[in-house]
């Protein structure tokens, strides 16, 4: 019953993203440039070794392309829309409408993510395929698992971004807190380097956080590092964290709305 609204919000958000072509182009080339830099650094790190922690050099280069492609899709570095909407007071207009506030933003982010997938995600992998030797999933099943994993990672990542943005309901200047949220994501998600390259204690620590399931799991499934039962377990963990995070969002949101102060007017 809610599907038409979800679709309608998502497609409007999609159109809005597509409209800013110059921004997309600039974003793409920035991402690609840094991707090359990271690929070169990793290649130097490999120092002619064929493999590290179960990942080949081609796999490591692919990792940089994949993670660079995900920056736009998952909005890994920044997203302040809910916080800004609280500060501008636009939140009042949205709360006056009979719709779930979380789902309202989820729908818009779905449109945004899909647009970024076509504008920056897919072209990134194509450019990588042209300039580097990259690997691709070997079987249809692996492709399916990758797509599913990417979807779950987006959902989980969105819930995290939404949750940290809710800080805006509590403090008149939540920018620092939200940034902290993105820094945690940056370090623990395996964006910097595949988590397998880190010491065991760090990997174990990060496994207790939702972050690896936003980036690292997707990468490992794409590269084929995870197979069979391990792969299924990884997908289950992603789904589990997504559900938990959405629950936390809803609880925090209802507390936040109750202490909302809309200034002026």
């Amino acid at each position, binding site marked *: 019953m809610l599907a038409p609204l979800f679709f309608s919000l998502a497609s409007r958000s999609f159109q809005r993203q597509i409209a800013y072509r110059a921004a997309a182009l600039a974003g793409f080339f920035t991402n690609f440039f840094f991707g090359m830099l990271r690929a070169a650094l990793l290649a130097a790190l490999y120092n002619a070794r064929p493999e590290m922690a179960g990942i080949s050099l081609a796999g490591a280069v692919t990792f940089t392309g994949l993670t660079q492609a995900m920056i736009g899709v998952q909005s890994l570095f920044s997203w302040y829309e809910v916080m800004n909407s609280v500060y501008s007071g636009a939140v*009042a*207009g949205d*709360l006056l*409408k009979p719709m779930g506030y979380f789902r309202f933003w989820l729908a818009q982010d779905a449109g945004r993510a899909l647009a970024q997938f076509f504008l920056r995600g897919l072209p990134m992998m194509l450019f990588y395929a042209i300039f580097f030797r990259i690997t691709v999933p070997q079987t249809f099943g692996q492709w399916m698992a990758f797509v599913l994993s990417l979807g779950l990672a987006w959902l989980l990542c969105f819930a995290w971004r939404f949750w940290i943005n809710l800080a805006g309901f509590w403090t008149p200047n939540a920018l620092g807190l939200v940034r902290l949220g993105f820094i945690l994501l940056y370090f623990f998600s395996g964006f910097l380097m595949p988590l397998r390259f880190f010491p065991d204690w760090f990997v174990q620590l990060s496994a207790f956080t939702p972050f690896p399931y936003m980036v690292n799991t997707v990468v490992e499934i794409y590269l084929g590092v995870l197979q069979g039962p391990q792969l299924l377990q990884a997908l289950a963990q992603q789904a589990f964290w997504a559900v938990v995070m959405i629950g936390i969002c809803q609880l925090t949101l209802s507390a936040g709305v*109750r202490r*909302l102060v*809309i200034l002026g*007017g």
Partner: protein
Amino acid sequence: MPPIIQVSHLTKYFKVSVHHRGFWGAFRNLISRQYRLARAVDGITFQVQPGELVGYLGPNGAGKSTTIKMLAGLLVPSGGEILVNGYLPWRERQAYVAKIGAVFGQRTTLWWDLPVIESLELLQYIYRIPGDRFRRNLDEFRQVLALDSFLDIPVRALSLGQRMRADLCAALLHDPLLLFLDEPTIGLDVVAKERIRQFILHINRARGVTVLLTTHDLSDVEKLCERVLIIDHGQLLYDGELTSLRDRFGGKRRLLVDFAQEYVDPQVEGAQITVREGSRVTYEFERNTITASGLISRLSELYRIRDLEVREPEIEETVRRIYEQKLLENH
């Protein structure tokens, strides 16, 4: 019929942090914060019947907007009871807001970067308005509010008057029972104000929508509302008909007379001359001393009159007197 709005002993306090002053004070603020409670709304009780058009008046910072926001479910009251259309607004937000409309003069409830028509179409999904009803309502509002010239323009590019009209349309597409208007004519020119007022009257009369509106512009109230609530410092000072407000606190009425000839000193018992310009004389009189017709017959016995006009005290002046002299304080 049961009242559509029931408010009793409603209060809203805001926590205001008190900052230590100066350089060292800034450090002290890091460690100790002190709070003061500001009472925005302080024990208000009133009821509104279905179909009423009620004006909610008060000076800046009186607590008008805070009340409206609590009624609309945006703010949680600190105390007291509030029941609108059978709902506790803040607790049952989603179910409740489906049946109300709200327009805030200071900000839009539409989406800033979408063309007006797309915002309106989105509302069809949000409120799940059946297609034929949506078309019918939209056609009517397009006409009455003259929306056609800017339906394709993004909301951010609209003039204030256009934005208000778009917002009003958006607030009513789903046939709400109740409409909250917070300063609907603020910052508009005379023509735009008049158009908005006509529309408010139209939806109240033709559709039976209950309207509660706050405003600074007393001609809004004069043209629209039979009943007014006056609030100051968070407390309700007056709740009743506009006419009886004028009767009780209106001050002096005026009679403008154009005599057939110039009289040296056209005095009359029960009224004072305030202005004299040749044969045109303005009298002031108290409503409880003499009626207008009494005064006119007295004058016409003494002098030859060409034309005359009775002026009621301006409502603006009346309300200003109420605020300034705290006329209702002990009431």
